[in-house]
């Protein structure tokens, strides 16, 4: 066990730091076109698609280097790359299960954010119980005809393509009749309606598909293999390294320290109040533990171990932590923490979405992490069954099956 970074890693970190110093945009980038341009610069510098094989336009480097880049970007509050769902999860799924044609056609443009991707899994009546989804894809020979509705689709309003789970056979057990398709979002049969989130932004959406068309060459794997393929996507989604996130939390902590020096109560700065100090001590201890845990995961990835179901522990840990973290911050800050636009230096923080915001947006965003990519309750089911080997729960749908 040696937690020092190797000399090569340190040199790489210094190089990334220098690059960011000269290249990070000085102002926010609200326009999509500016975000795409920034993304492109990151990509060309070798900082996007770092784990992807070179053959598909990636950089074929190590989890360690990727973590270093994310960590350094978080340290300076650099705008993150876009197309995260595509690059993080959908692309790797295509790499594992896709055809050569699909790889040639989609991967490079995904990496460079020329085409933006979304994930069309959840439906109004199929969330945690994803396998009960109802959207239908009828086999028409050279194409599939898609009818149904998806919901909570992140990036839906800006997406060019989506990875879709749809039912191709309603006569077999529910998780056997599902297929996975790539769907062109820019066609008449696809209608996207933005949905406003509790943060006030509309980053997710509803997607209605009415006789939408998916070409046969856009079928991933075989007909009926969709459920298995979805497991790959979800595995990538939960197994992501969290070091960069933790660094963003740490940056927020330093903002909090600053705030507690400036804000006063009872004739003294908040930081001198023992009750505030106790809360801050607990927050920071938990934050550090998240960092150590992230290093442990990183070291395992680096040693070629795949975290498997244990990635549920990581996801559960940092998302639940994030909720407690911002709850405590808002307790300490009082109404200052609830402002939606910042007037003072200490009010700006990076939210877990990677976008800048205020304490209030970070606090609101923290509610999302324990719902998406499998809610905390679902993670605990997975940990109980697959990590601890506890007996499966008795469920009505299993009794029927």
């Amino acid at each position, binding site marked *: *066990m*040696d*937690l*020092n*970074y*190797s000399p090569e*890693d340190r040199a790489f970190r210094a190089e990334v730091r220098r690059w960011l110093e000269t290249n990070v945009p000085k102002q926010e980038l609200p326009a999509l076109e500016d975000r795409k341009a920034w993304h492109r610069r990151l990509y060309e510098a070798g900082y996007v698609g770092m784990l992807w094989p070179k053959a598909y336009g990636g950089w074929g480097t190590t989890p*360690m280097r990727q973590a270093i880049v994310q960590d350094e970007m978080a340290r300076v509050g650099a705008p993150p790359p876009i197309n995260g769902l595509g690059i993080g999860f959908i692309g790797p799924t295509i790499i594992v299960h896709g055809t050569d044609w699909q790889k040639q056609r989609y991967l490079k443009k995904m990496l460079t954010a020329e085409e933006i991707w979304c994930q069309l899994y959840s439906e109004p009546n199929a969330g945690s119980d994803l396998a009960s989804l109802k959207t239908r894809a009828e086999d028409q020979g050279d194409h599939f005809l898609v009818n149904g509705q998806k919901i909570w689709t992140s990036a839906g309003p800006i997406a060019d393509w989506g990875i879709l789970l749809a039912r191709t056979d309603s006569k077999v057990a529910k998780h056997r009749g599902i297929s996975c398709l790539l769907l062109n979002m820019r066609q008449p049969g696809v209608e996207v309606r933005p949905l406003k989130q509790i943060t006030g932004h509309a980053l997710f959406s509803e997607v209605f598909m009415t006789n939408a068309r998916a070409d046969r060459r856009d079928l991933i794997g075989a007909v009926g293999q969709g459920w298995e393929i979805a497991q790959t996507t979800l595995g990538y989604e939960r197994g992501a390294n969290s070091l960069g996130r933790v660094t963003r939390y740490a940056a927020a*902590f330093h903002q909090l*320290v600053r705030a*507690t020096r400036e804000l006063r109560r009872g004739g003294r700065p908040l*930081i001198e109040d023992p009750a505030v*100090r*106790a809360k*801050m*001590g*607990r927050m*920071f*201890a*938990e934050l*550090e*533990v*998240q960092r*150590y*845990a992230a*290093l*442990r995961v*990183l*070291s*395992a990835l*680096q*040693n070629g171990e795949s975290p498997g179901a244990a990635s549920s*522990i990581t996801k*559960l*840990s940092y998302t639940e932590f994030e909720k407690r973290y911002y709850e405590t911050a808002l307790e300490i800050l009082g109404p200052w923490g609830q402002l939606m636009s910042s007037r003072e230096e200490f009010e700006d923080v990076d939210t877990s979405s990677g976008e800048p915001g205020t304490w209030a947006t970070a606090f609101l965003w923290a509610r999302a992490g324990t719902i998406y990519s499998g809610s905390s*309750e679902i*993670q*605990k*089911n997975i*940990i*109980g*069954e697959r*990590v*601890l*080997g*506890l*007996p*499966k*729960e*008795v469920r009505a749908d299993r009794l029927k099956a």
Partner: protein
Amino acid sequence: MDFSFSPDQRLLRDSARAFLDEHAKPAAVRLLWDDPRGESEALWKEMAQLGWLGLALPEAYGGSGLGMLEAAILLHELGRAGYPGPYLPTLLAAAAIGAAGSEGQKARWLPAIATGEARASVALLDAELDWRPEATAMRAEKTGAGFALSGRKHFVPWAHVARVLLVPARAPEGLTLFLVDPGAGGLTQTPAQAMDPGTRWSTMTFERTPVGADAVLGAPGQAGPLLDALLRQGAVGAAAEMLGAARRCLDLSVEYAKVREQFGQPIGSFQAIRHKCAEMLLEVENSHSAVYYAAWALDARSEDHELAASVAKAYVGDAARRVCGESIQVHGGIGFTWEYDLHIYFKRAKALEAQYGDGDYHRELIVRRVAA
């Protein structure tokens, strides 16, 4: 960067576990609970032979020259076994003697500790139970032959079996550490009956207890940094032991939840129980990261080693208390019986939570480091 144990470290862990599974079974632990001495001479000698007592001592004094990481691996196993005895206080005293002792002091104590002849302990808390070294109230007056110590130390672990005690006191030069013979004149020991029968504490009353000038460890007036280092090692050591206790409780709970049936199904199939077990695992895994990160940091003297020690103690103290407590909940009535083993670990974790700086103390240290 590598967070995994080396092959040697894995070997140490596996052999320690195998040894303790055989020689420190719960039944053996219970026998020691009823023993007035509370720990086993035979076991101590075996631990010496296995090299555990000299683990972190220099090779020149009969040790193996290993570090806090290996000590944490062992303490984890001792916690998992619920082993009662002065392993941790002896380790701490030995480390301080190794770090600051004169040639004579090292030659007198380190080989004796490594071979299992002598046990040692640390007497850190005065009546106000303030862990800050600067809060030390015990006085050391100059006498012709050395010093006379006056005051009272509370919750001194395993004082009744120790051959030497580390005692901080205020000398004219400032805060000073003394090596004290527990049998010295003017020193009385009052054992306290605590909740954990595997933790033996005494109150030590010093009434002008004479110690020689050669009993000073390090330079007079310079004990502050030594005590800080000792507390950090104590914090990480205690965290490792608590982690072991928590891991054992989790394992017992998971085994039980698979076989205990109610309402026609194993209780582990109920989400209320299964989710509790998942949360326990989460806290145990995070504690693992915290303990070994901190142990590594102390050995490597990394920039954040002081912080890491406090983080480990504050986090694992809370986590182990919750995990051990929830294991009783998972077991229901049987978990509340004296015959069932859970309370061995539950009580040990609680006893350690209060030692070498409790959560509040370490959280305050953390805030001082990160927010001044």
